[in-house]
């Protein structure tokens, strides 16, 4: 590669942000000052494999700049590209792919207001208008309306991100902790200018009132602490819980407490069984993926473990961005060590020594908790070169997403980690054969992995006895919308939709239930006897998806809801293939046209929607385009949305 860079220079602060991640540059060839005295510069070369190997630091580099400055300037991007030997055009393509980055100047503080299904139903539109009016243009805060923040149980939700120096103590939801070292001045030294003297801070505000959102946006470091994760689990403390048993009972910041509550017994059992034994247990338990595709986990592990090509990678998909889904967040915030342990077991079984935890960028508390948990586990020899003294090496790296629903698609996620645009790859080849960095990779979502712990502690037969014959084990459901007790529920497979909604105290006047999120489908209030199993929902012509159950009462205008779903998919389409890139636009246009129409006036556009929807389902590259029409179709067919 013969790269050409422009003549724009980074500011000192931008340079510092990149150097904090990559270390100081070694040569003027990669951006160090050119003072003419360093003769070594004349004999310096780096390229080829070494350069390619650092490509995956592009996304962390963009985060470093965005975290510190609030946006990514031309000089900053050029400098990062010099450091990583990445063509600037490609880096620009990556930076403009993610919603959380900006390549145009913007204020250091951004308030993201969720305008997705649950939040809109809870008044997010008024909230954002109100907050914008109160803050005004002088406040230095930009209000951005955006997709689901994964806080549906506390709708409406807002997230404040203030760029600043992360070397200084920063506050995450009221908990003060140093993010990295102590390179800057002490806090509270009187300097309150934005940017370099302001510590980076994030604050989650949910349920958000205009008052609370304005206060959080102006002083995120003083925002009140988020409610404990256990408050998102209405059943917390119930001894019958399996996956959620420690949420609210064990301290999520204490490894000792985790072990006192049964932590790391599953890993010990795994070492006793050996890799093949673990895979046999998982297969016998009948575990299938909980991310929505319901693929048998044991088969996936076996296929990866058997690949002759090395190294193998483990990827945990924690990019839960499906509107209405927040179970992975609650698990990670409330029981982070469980995920660390489960990833260790999965890696051991499949022969991986490196695990990536791809965490969605909008989850600051999950990031804090898992960073802490991984560091603790490493200190105690539960990660690292010699896990539990068993001679097995495994470590976990957290990769932060930057606002792209598509990156939850497994191959798009690989591209994102590798430093490319988060566009899905076409399959075959499948990830078990060629996944991350082109190597055999097993990818599981958070809930799937956490299920491995009870499988190993209780044994496959006992686990398989839970649920139904075809859908075994416990399942998490994210219940939100028109219910009095929204949150994450754990029920054995086979409970009916009605039972779940009764638990969550559904309000009177139920009009529709969205199953499986925006990519799922609506069902009617008279279909509440649908058993919540993969086979039961399939038989009923719908899907369990990722376990989303959103209830809407008759005050919610259905056409508006459908329009929002269409908007979501149009916004989140990566743009790679035609059926999805243009189809999602045409779908939204048709729904706008018929927003207030019914019957014959809407019939033409509904036919059009059906035709486009069918082609999107048949011909799109990945699941996003293939499912973008599901919810709208189900609303037309099952709910008679435009009759």
């Amino acid at each position, binding site marked *: 590669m013969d790269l*050409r860079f422009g003549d724009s220079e980074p500011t000192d602060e931008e340079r510092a942000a990149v150097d904090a991640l990559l270390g100081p540059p070694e040569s003027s060839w990669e951006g160090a000052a050119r003072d003419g005295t360093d003769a070594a510069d004349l004999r310096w070369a780096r390229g080829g494999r070494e350069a390619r190997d650092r490509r995956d630091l592009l996304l962390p580099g963009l985060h470093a700049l965005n975290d510190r400055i609030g946006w990514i300037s031309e000089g900053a991007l050029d400098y990062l590209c010099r450091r990583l030997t990445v063509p600037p055009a*490609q880096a620009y393509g990556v930076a403009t792919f993610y919603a959380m980055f900006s*390549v145009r100047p913007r204020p250091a503080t951004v308030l993201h207001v969720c305008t997705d299904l649950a939040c809109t139903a809870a008044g997010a539109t008024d909230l954002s208008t109100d907050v914008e009016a109160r803050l005004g243009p002088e406040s230095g805060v930009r209000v951005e309306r955006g997709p689901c923040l994964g806080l549906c149980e506390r709708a409406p939700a807002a997230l404040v991100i203030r760029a600043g120096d992360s070397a200084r103590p920063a506050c995450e939801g009221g908990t003060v902790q140093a993010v990295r070292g102590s390179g800057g001045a002490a806090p509270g030294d009187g300097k309150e200018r934005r940017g370099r003297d302001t510590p980076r801070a994030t604050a989650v505000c949910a349920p958000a009132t205009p008052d609370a959102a304005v206060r959080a946006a102006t002083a995120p470091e003083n925002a009140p602490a988020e409610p404990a994760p256990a408050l998102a689990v209405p059943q917390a403390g119930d001894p019958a819980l399996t996956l959620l048993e420690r949420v609210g009972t064990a301290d999520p910041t204490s490894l000792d407490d985790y072990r006192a509550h049964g932590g790391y017994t599953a890993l010990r059992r795994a070492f006793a069984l050996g890799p093949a034994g673990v895979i046999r247990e998982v297969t016998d338990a009948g575990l299938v993926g909980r991310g929505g595709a319901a693929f048998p986990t044991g088969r996936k592990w076996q296929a990866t473990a058997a690949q002759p090509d090395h190294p193998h990678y483990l990827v945990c998909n924690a990019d839960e961005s499906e509107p209405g889904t927040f179970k992975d967040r609650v698990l990670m915030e409330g029981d982070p060590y469980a995920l660390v342990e489960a990833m260790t077991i999965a890696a051991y079984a499949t022969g991986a020594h490196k695990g990536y935890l791809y965490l969605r960028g909008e989850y600051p508390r999950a990031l804090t908790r898992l960073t802490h948990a991984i560091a603790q586990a490493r200190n105690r020899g539960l990660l690292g070169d010699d896990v539990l003294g068993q001679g097995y090496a495994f470590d976990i790296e957290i990769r932060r997403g930057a606002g*792209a629903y598509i990156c939850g698609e497994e191959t798009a996620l690989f591209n994102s980690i590798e430093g490319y645009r988060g566009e899905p790859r076409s399959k075959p080849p499948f990830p078990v054969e060629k996944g991350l960095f082109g190597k055999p990779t097993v990818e599981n979502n958070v809930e799937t992995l956490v299920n491995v712990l009870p499988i190993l502690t209780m044994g496959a037969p006992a686990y398989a006895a839970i649920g139904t014959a075809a859908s075994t084990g416990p399942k998490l459901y994210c219940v939100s919308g028109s219910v009095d007790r929204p949150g994450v529920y754990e029920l054995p497979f086979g409970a009916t939709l009605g039972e779940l909604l009764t638990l969550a105290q559904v309000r009177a006047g139920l009009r529709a239930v969205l199953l499986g999120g925006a990519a799922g489908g609506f069902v009617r209030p008279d279909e509440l006897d649908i058993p919540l199993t993969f086979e039961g929902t399939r038989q009923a012509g719908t899907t369990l998806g990722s376990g989303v159950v959103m209830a809407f009462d008759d005050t919610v205008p259905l056409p508006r809801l459908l329009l929002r779903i269409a908007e979501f998919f149009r916004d989140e389409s990566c*743009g790679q293939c035609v059926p999805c890139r*243009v189809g*999602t636009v045409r779908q939204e*246009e048709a729904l706008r046209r018929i927003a207030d129409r019914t019957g014959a006036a809407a019939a033409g556009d509904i036919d059009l929607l059906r035709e486009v929807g069918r082609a999107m389902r048949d011909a799109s590259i990945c699941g996003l385009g293939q499912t973008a029409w599901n919810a709208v179709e189900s609303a037309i067919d099952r709910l008679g949305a435009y009759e």
Partner: protein
Amino acid sequence: MTAIPLGVPRRLVEFTLDGQDARVPEGSTILEACRAAGKDVPTLCEGDTLTPKNACRVCVVEVEGARTLAPACSRRAEPGMVVRTDTERARHSRKVVLELLASSVDLSTTPSVARWIKEYEAKPDRFGPDAARVDEEPRVDNDLYVRDYGKCILCYKCVDACGDQWQNTFAISVSGRGFDARISVEQDAPLTDSACVYCGNCIEVCPTGALSFKSEFDMRAAGTWDEARQSETTTVCAYCGVGCNLTLHVQDNEIVKVTSPHDNPVTHGNLCIKGRFGYQHVQNRD
């Protein structure tokens, strides 16, 4: 005649194509099998010198047992596969994809597309007069070639040709997302401020005329572009000793553009700035 490298002998894969037995060398795509069998499967983003990106989805076919349709251009034939190329389902997707494309960009300079639109009875107008289009002014920022986003179908071929598949200049990439995604250089700057080396290999692979010679663009604007009056002559580039083949497109005794034969085993259709654009001296008769 061009020499064709022989390569390692490959085993044959047997599968069923539209109810008939087909035998193709291992590693062949369904599209290659279709072409060998004389079937017309429409393709837009597939290119003979590049790895198929399968982004346009107009070549989809039905593979028995698969949940979705498969892109013929990149799905490899497997033993025992049962493929149908002309089912109602595949035809429906092709029709809708053609409608989606033709309603959002200008396909007037895309070869074969008018024929397919007729064949599949696609009606791009039916999304209404307000359907979103990529209506952008052509970008004319240098004397050699023009970028017309209004014709771009985002097939990624130019990106691949500029990047690791041929030129290794990496001057262009896709930026943005969804319907707002565009092929662009860094910071979406003018070409003259970018890493572009003007090899023109992106023009060579562009299937829609979104990238074109300035000469062609100007003649089209003036209404003087007439392919029927053009003759093509393949010759050897005289600039250096590599011996790349040039195909001169001549209209009224003037070279109007230069391409290169894709089946040339050395260049595969690629040239450098001199071979592609350095022809003015030939017709400078003063």
